[in-house]
Each structure stands twice: as C-alpha cells, then as structure tokens.
C-alpha cells in the first residue's frame, strides 16, 4: 500500500514512451481521447485497435498492468456488450434461439463499443503508467501557462499539486500510525455499522488536521526564508526537453487523425 502511494501507478522504465516529454504525452492522450469518437466502422475501429496495440508494444509495459487497469470496468464492458447484443435490432438475424435473437447490427455495435472502451482505458492507463505524477504536474503547468492571461494562478496551482504529491506518503504514514494507535485502543475503522465508522473517523481527523496546519506553517516559513517569491523569474530543478521523439509522436497522432477522417463513413 505504502509503495503504491509513493509512485502512484508509475512504473519506471526507459522505453520510447517513457523517454517522451510529459507535454507531448499529455497532448497525445487528450487528443486521442477525442479522436476515438471519430471511429464508426470496421476499418476505423480496426485502425484504432492496431494503433493502440502498437503504443502498448513500444511502451514495453507488461500486459498484466494494463489488464489490472481494466479490472474496474470489465464488468461494465461485458454488460454493455450484452445489452447491445440483446436489444439492438438492426440488420440480419445471426442467431435465433427462439426466446433470444441476435442481430448483426447488435453484435457489431457491441464489439465497437467494447473496442472503444478498451482503447480509451489502455491509452489513459499508459499515460499514468509511464509518467510519474510529478512530471505530469510539470507538464500540465507548462501546457496551461497561456491561461495565465485570464488571471488564473497556474503556477500556484502547480506548486500546490507538487506539495500535495510530496506530502501524500508522509501524511499516509501518519494516518496509518494514528489508525494503529486507535486500533490499539479498540476502535476499528474498517468494520461495523455506519454509526460506529463515523465515530471512529473523528479521532483520526483531529490530529491529522492539526498536524497538517502545523506542517504548513513550518513549510511556508522555510520557503520564505529561502526566498520563494512566486513564479516570476523562477528557475527549475526539473527541466522539460522537447526533442525529435516528441515531434514524431505528435506527427503519428496527426497521421492517425487524418486516416480516421479519411476512412470513416
């Protein structure tokens, strides 16, 4: 559990996808999520599937991790698939069992929706599997920079995100400690009727809040002493670098979009 909390779902590696700049990966994922909805026939869904398999291949992520990401939706996918098979009545009847008729259109729709689902989940999962939360934060900060014109505090938001990320393990540790201390006194958070659960949460929250405010005070003082003065003219420890790989990745995406638009009916 602790290990999981520190890195999120990130799996370190040095594949092509790992080496990409977080900015290009973010742009890629967001646009990909949109173009998935362009697909509407066998050719385009086939293209999507092949493209996704290719991305999985070059990311060198073990299939096990991706299937793991699919676990929460697998029931949903099967359910939607069945709904389409049972209730969409288009085209020829493929199978007639008397009480149950499977139509060609229903089967096709079911397969299409399942592909769309799996493709969406895989691509977004690959983003979080190959990019650490802190680099995603860095990438988001740079990408959202133009919004500063509308007086949105993008730098401050990114700062808060990175502090929050940094303190998740620490506060997790503390939560764990307090929970164990409460358990030693005989309270149990994970079980019992709802009334008891709420009662058990109060002695967990009080020390957490108090220590969080104290920690914040200390950290703010430390930052001030070191001369933190907002985003203006601040240099970076983690530099982002856009190189040929990132351009290739965006180019592949543009090509994919063009193919989808060309082949869709």
């Amino acid at each position, binding site marked *: 559990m602790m290990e999981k909390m520190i890195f999120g779902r990130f799996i370190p590696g040095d594949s092509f996808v790992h080496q990409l700049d977080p900015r290009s990966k973010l742009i890629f994922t967001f646009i990909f*999520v949109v173009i998935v909805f362009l697909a509407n026939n066998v050719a385009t869904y086939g293209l999507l599937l092949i493209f996704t398999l290719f991305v999985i291949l070059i990311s060198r992520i073990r299939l096990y991790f991706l299937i793991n990401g699919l676990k929460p939706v697998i029931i949903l996918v099967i359910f939607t698939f069945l709904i389409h098979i049972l209730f969409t009545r288009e085209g020829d009847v493929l199978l007639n069992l008397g009480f149950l008729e499977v139509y060609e259109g229903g089967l096709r729709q079911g397969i299409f929706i399942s592909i769309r689902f799996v493709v969406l989940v895989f691509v977004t999962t690959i983003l979080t599997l190959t990019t650490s939360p802190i680099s995603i934060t860095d990438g988001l900060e740079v990408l959202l920079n133009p919004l500063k014109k509308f007086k949105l505090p993008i730098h401050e*938001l990114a700062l808060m995100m990175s502090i929050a990320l940094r303190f*998740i393990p620490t506060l997790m540790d503390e939560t764990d400690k307090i929970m164990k201390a409460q358990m030693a006194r005989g309270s149990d958070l994970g079980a019992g009727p709802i009334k008891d659960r709420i009662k058990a949460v109060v002695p967990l929250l*009080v020390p957490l809040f108090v220590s*969080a405010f104290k920690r914040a005070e200390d950290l703010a003082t430390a930052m*001030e002493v070191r001369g933190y003065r907002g985003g203006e003219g601040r240099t970076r420890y983690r530099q982002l670098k856009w190189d040929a790989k990132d351009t290739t990745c965006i180019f592949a995406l543009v090509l994919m979009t063009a193919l989808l638009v060309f082949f869709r009916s």
Partner: protein
Amino acid sequence: MNKMKLRSFVTIAMLSSISFILMFLNFPLPYFPVFLEIDFSDVPALIAAITMGPVAGILVEFIKNILNWLFMGAPTGVPVGHMANFATGILFIMPVYYVYKRTNSVKGLIFGLIAGTFTMSIGMSVLNYVAFLPMYTYFLGMGTFDVKETIVLGILPFNIIKGILLMVLVLMLFRTMRNWIENQRAQYLLQKQ
C-alpha cells in the same frame, strides 16, 4: 509575496493530501449501485473553506480529484466520475461556508449543513440529469439504464444520506475542534480583510 498567502497555499496543499488519502477509506452503502460510494474527503475541503475562504475549499476539491485521477485513472478513460465528485463537493461546502460566515455559531453551522445537503442532493440530481448520466451513457454506447429512475431511486436518496452522514461527522468534529478552527480562521481569513 504575502506571507499569509504563501501559508494558505501550503495549507491547501496539505489538506488536499489528506482529502486524497481519505478518498481511499470509502465504502459503498447497502442497496445502492456500486459507483455511489461514501467517503469523508469533503471534510478537509470544508475545513479549508471555513478557515481560508471559499476559493481554498474549491482548490482542495480540485487538487484532490486531479491527484485521484493521476493515481487511479478513470474507468471510462474520461474522468466523468471525478467531475461529478468535484461538483458534489462544491455544492456541499459552499452553502455551509456562506451560512456559517453569517452567523458564526453552532446553530449557523447546522443550518449551513442542512442547506449544503439540500443543494448537493438537488444540484447533483439536476447535473446528473443534464450532464453526467448522459455522458456515461454516451461513453457506454446507448441507454443502459433509465436516467430518471436512476436519479430518483439512486442519486437523490444517496446524496441525502451522504449529506446527513457528513453533517453528523462535521458536528462531532466541530464539538472537539471549534476553538482550534476559530483560531486558525482568525489567523488566515480575518487577517486578509
């Protein structure tokens, strides 16, 4: 940079972390669909709103959901559930903050919490009707469930129960922490004005 401003930024970050952690201590209610889960991650956001103003509360909700999305991913690829959670949180904490600010008493807090429960359940029913359920339906393909039935039998009673549970928790928390909260509030919020 203003010292108090920097301190609020850091405090908001810490509260977001707590909120994020509390999201893992979630549990489904009996008799409700599994995607409706209760967790207490709105409490840190509420504390942030009361001590540092409404924007702080919104930021905690926002960062919590972004972090959860980064760590857990979204089952539909597009974070519809996270957007819904964000909206729920805001609809709950805003009325509490405004009513409590006016009266500054336990009675005001109770009224605020009741108002929050009200806006949360009504607001989420409306938002689910016009936005979130259609979005789910769209991503899933065609109508897999009856929208009206899901709202009347699922979303509405669920949010009322969630509001009541949060209300009980916040009141219990407030009984022990009132002085401390007021103290923080004096440091953060009142100094700004």
